[in-house]
């Protein structure tokens, strides 16, 4: 093996390392179209690798989930999540009654805090479920957001 081959081998393994770095759960390296196209909340939750929703551990106290009680506008609902569960690898967000419930999936390395804030769309009053994958175990919490379409609302 000459030097350039060695270098290439090193580069290849480095690239492999980088690409595996973001794959804490098997099979979800890439955006999973199937999971994001599920229309039923149960199927949607199963699609991320949970065979039995009963295996989800309640972690309402260890997942800080901030959502409005009543959304001012369903097109722009602020959401903030902080996981206090050690070794948090992923945070999934589901809006139960959206046409496709899986909203987003955040994959964390140890080089970033298990915290994320974003803004989501919600078509109607529904539970927002947050599932955290930490050290191979799935945890859950949920909150209801009321979406009203009043006479004065827009779009």
């Amino acid at each position, binding site marked *: 093996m000459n030097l350039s081959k060695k270098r290439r081998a090193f580069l290849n393994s480095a690239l492999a390392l980088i690409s595996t770095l973001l794959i804490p759960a098997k099979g979800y390296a890439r955006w999973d179209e199937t999971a994001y196209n599920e229309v039923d909340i149960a199927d949607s939750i199963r699609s991320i690798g949970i065979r039995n929703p009963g295996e989800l551990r309640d972690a309402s106290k260890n997942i800080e989930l901030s959502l409005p009680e009543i959304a*001012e506008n369903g097109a722009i609902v602020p959401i903030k999540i902080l996981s206090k569960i050690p070794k948090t690898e992923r945070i999934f967000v589901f809006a139960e009654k959206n046409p496709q419930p899986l909203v987003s999936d955040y994959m964390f390395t140890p080089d970033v805090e298990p915290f994320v804030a974003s803004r989501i769309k919600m078509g109607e009053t529904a539970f927002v479920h947050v599932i955290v994958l930490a050290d191979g175990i799935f945890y859950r919490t949920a909150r209801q957001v009321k979406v009203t379409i009043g006479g004065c609302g827009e779009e």
Partner: protein
Amino acid sequence: MRLLQHLTALIIFIASPQAWSNPEEDRQLFLATFAGNIPDVPISQYIYGSMMLSEDALNQYESIMDFPPFQEMVDQGKKVWETPFKNGQTFANCFGNKGTNVAGTFPYYDTTHEQVVTFEMALNFCLERNGETRMSYVDPETMGALSAYARSLSDGMLMQIEVPNAQALTKYELGKSLYFKRIGQYNLACASCHLTHGGRYFRDELLSPTIGQAVHFPVFRGGERLYTLQMRYQRCMEAVGAVAFESGSETLNNLEFFHSYLSNGLPLQSSVYRR
């Protein structure tokens, strides 16, 4: 007892729309009504509209305003404001103080041309005077964005509308009478919701008081538009099942004149998020 006094005052007020108004008395009467509807809320909070009564709503407002999704549109407005016209002039040259801290004096009564001039009209006059084409008063992408940026140069300025003479008072009166006129399928006047029920629930809507409404336009209401105050009047008129008056019409200009006067003393901010 205090409520009874307000009600009596209100009845006299509504029953005598023909009498000449004293704008400052009107403003005080509105304030007294809201003090009855929502006691303990300082007037400085009125700039947040109905959100001042809901921590949940105010949290969402602050969260959205922290990094507004409509910034891109305001930036488009900035570009239009800063780009010189073909003759080399700019919008800034059309306004006193280069357009900074001026919006709080609009609408004003132009004694020479005997008309109410809104800020958006002044933008169009500026275009016209410099040989450019006017913008449509109902186009959120041009007038909405330009007004949003131009008004942001007056952020923090206190509203200070003046009614300088009898002619101006006539315009004010016309705006006021529309404010109290019941219109549309729902037979509602602006006052039915935003004076009588200002700060209260009407069905499932928490209604903003009239005072504080005029200082925060154009607004972003989700979606992809910035609405000027008059575009918002139009949506409101449609919501009560009425045919809306045109943006830029004398009717809505007079309404804006009256409506803005009532927010005198409150700080301007452009643009903001509203539901």
